[in-house]
């Protein structure tokens, strides 16, 4: 087990820079998730840590040792691929012992480690099966088992759950969390799914266009996003952004407004921080356009109808609200904004201190 240090790490293909000076330190035993939209460079960054991509600039250190010039097998890492990358012509047992065989470990030791990993992952009954005879979730567990037997200093996961269906994804996510608690190993995990990031991570690294937007615990990112990108990316339902006029959001009640200061151009409020309210007391009025029913809650997509929010053009301003009581489509509802949960953004998208 080891800590991991990225210092000014850069990557360019030809003339195009895909990783733009990333600085990050990951503590020993920490579970860090890289999250971001596709093409943000998160997988490239992971592959650079793994040694599968060259580093154009900066340094990567694992356990205090700069590994820029070391090949992948010398870095003491193990990687779990999105496609599982199981060797199809080898049994589960052979897949899991392949790396140890290459290290010429004694047979007894290999057998013991494979058995141990199989016990952890409940793969015992499948050791002599071929990968094609396994389900997706079992294959993913074999891929994880293959990483475990090598007792790496750092585990790298590249979108390990994206090929699984929703139910299995939740279950395997839980298994990975349990595995981390059990092994206490340093883990770096790449995903585009913010739910995986929120539920698994000790700390989340939000990447966008090859840069780190923010690093923090899941709750920090949820409560105190530093900019509009993070605010919009983190959270089960996307945050609503409302444009301001002269730093203030005019409200439905005559003359009332939310003042956010002269620099503020945008107000952000999460759907769960809007409340249905009787119309006379409402901050905003909206007509229900679409209702998404999730069972435990409903998500309303509203067109704002308060005169001052209808927007300059003909485009109606859409916002979403999370509610727990049924509302009919076409109905006009009043909303109040929870003042404690307002985020104010300046023209460059940065959050203004409350």
């Amino acid at each position: 087990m080891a800590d991991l240090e990225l210092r000014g790490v850069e990557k360019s293909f030809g003339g195009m820079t895909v990783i733009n000076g990333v600085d990050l330190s990951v503590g020993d035993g920490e579970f860090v998730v890289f999250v971001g939209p596709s093409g943000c460079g998160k997988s490239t960054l992971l592959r650079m840590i793994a040694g599968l991509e060259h580093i154009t600039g900066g340094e990567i250190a694992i356990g205090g040792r700069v590994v820029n010039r070391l090949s992948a097998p010398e870095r003491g890492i193990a990687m779990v691929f999105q496609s599982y990358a199981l060797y199809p012509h080898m049994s589960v047992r052979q897949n899991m012992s392949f790396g140890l065989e290459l290290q010429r470990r004694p047979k007894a030791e290999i057998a013991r480690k494979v058995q141990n990993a199989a016990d952890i992952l409940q793969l015992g009954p499948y050791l002599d099966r071929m990968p094609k005879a396994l389900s997706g979730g079992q294959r993913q567990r074999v891929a994880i088992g293959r990483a475990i037997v090598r007792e790496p200093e750092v585990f790298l996961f590249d979108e390990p759950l994206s090929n699984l269906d929703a139910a299995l994804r939740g279950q395997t996510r839980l298994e990975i969390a349990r595995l981390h608690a059990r092994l206490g190993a340093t883990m770096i995990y790449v995903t585009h799914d913010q739910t995986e990031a929120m539920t698994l991570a000790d700390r989340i690294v939000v990447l966008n266009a090859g840069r780190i937007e923010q690093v923090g615990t899941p709750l920090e990112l949820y409560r105190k996003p530093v900019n509009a990108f993070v605010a919009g990316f983190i959270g089960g339902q996307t945050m609503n952004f409302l444009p301001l006029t002269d730093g203030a959001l005019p409200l439905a009640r005559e003359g009332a407004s939310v003042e956010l200061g002269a620099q503020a151009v945008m107000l952000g409020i999460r759907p769960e921080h809007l409340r249905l309210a009787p119309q006379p007391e409402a901050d905003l009025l909206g007509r229900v356009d679409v209702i998404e029913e999730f069972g435990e809650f409903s998500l309303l997509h509203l067109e704002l109808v308060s005169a001052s929010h209808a927007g300059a053009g003909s485009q109606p301003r859409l916002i979403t609200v999370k509610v727990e009581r049924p509302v009919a489509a076409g109905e006009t509802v009043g909303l109040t904004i929870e003042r404690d949960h307002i985020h104010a953004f300046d023209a460059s998208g940065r959050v203004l201190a409350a």
Partner: protein
Amino acid sequence: MSDNPDHPSRAMAIALAFLAVIWVSPFAWLVSNAVDPLAGGQLRLPAAIGPDNFIRAMSGSAAEQFRNSLFIAAGTATLTLIVASGAAYALSRLRVPGRNAFLWSLVLLRMLPPTGILVPIYFAAQRAGILNNTGVIVALTVLNLPFAMLLLKNFFDTVPIELEEAAHVEGASLLTILRRIVLPMSRAGLAVVWFFSFTGAWNEFMFPLLFSRTTSAFPMSIGLYSAFGRQGAIDYGYLAAFSIIYAAPAIAVYFMLRRNMNTGFAGVGVKG
């Protein structure tokens, strides 16, 4: 014309039977003459049945020719496989600009009739001092390479790069990755290439005719040709038995590899 499309008319049946007889008769001739020690070259039921022809066709110079053929065929197939898989792997994995144009231009070269390049090949072999069966192997391998490379490249393309990356992370060298991952997963393609090269070289007539300077170096294809009219009389029984033995390895290889070939051709189809 019959009303029932499942039952062909009498004329159709006769025509089909006639075609079948024409198709089968050379094989029937071979078999009936090979098993008949008194064979006279007619298509008829054997007058006697005995293994004499086969025994003669498997001893002496015939046995030597069998060994020569085996050496040429197995040598060509194996050399083709080794060289083509190395080249095809590189072409599959490296981003060489214009690699497809390169491959297809090689195939174009292969389309030219080999007879057209006989003379330069002959002199090249003479200069290199390999005007013998080793030379035949080299010449046939060179001619086999374009198709073999194209076929194997398509097979290697189907091996996901993640598998190699996973093996690399686990500490496998390039040679280990090839030996333990890429080649086992491309077994079907390798088998197809080996089989085609083997039968192609086994059947080859022109190059051995040109390159083999002594009768002891003749493969079976040349042996069969030279056995016509030996000592003034044609020994039909011997020739028929010899032909059957000559055909046997190709058939044996076919059955040995048929399972692999089925998946092999399917693999080619998938990649297009």
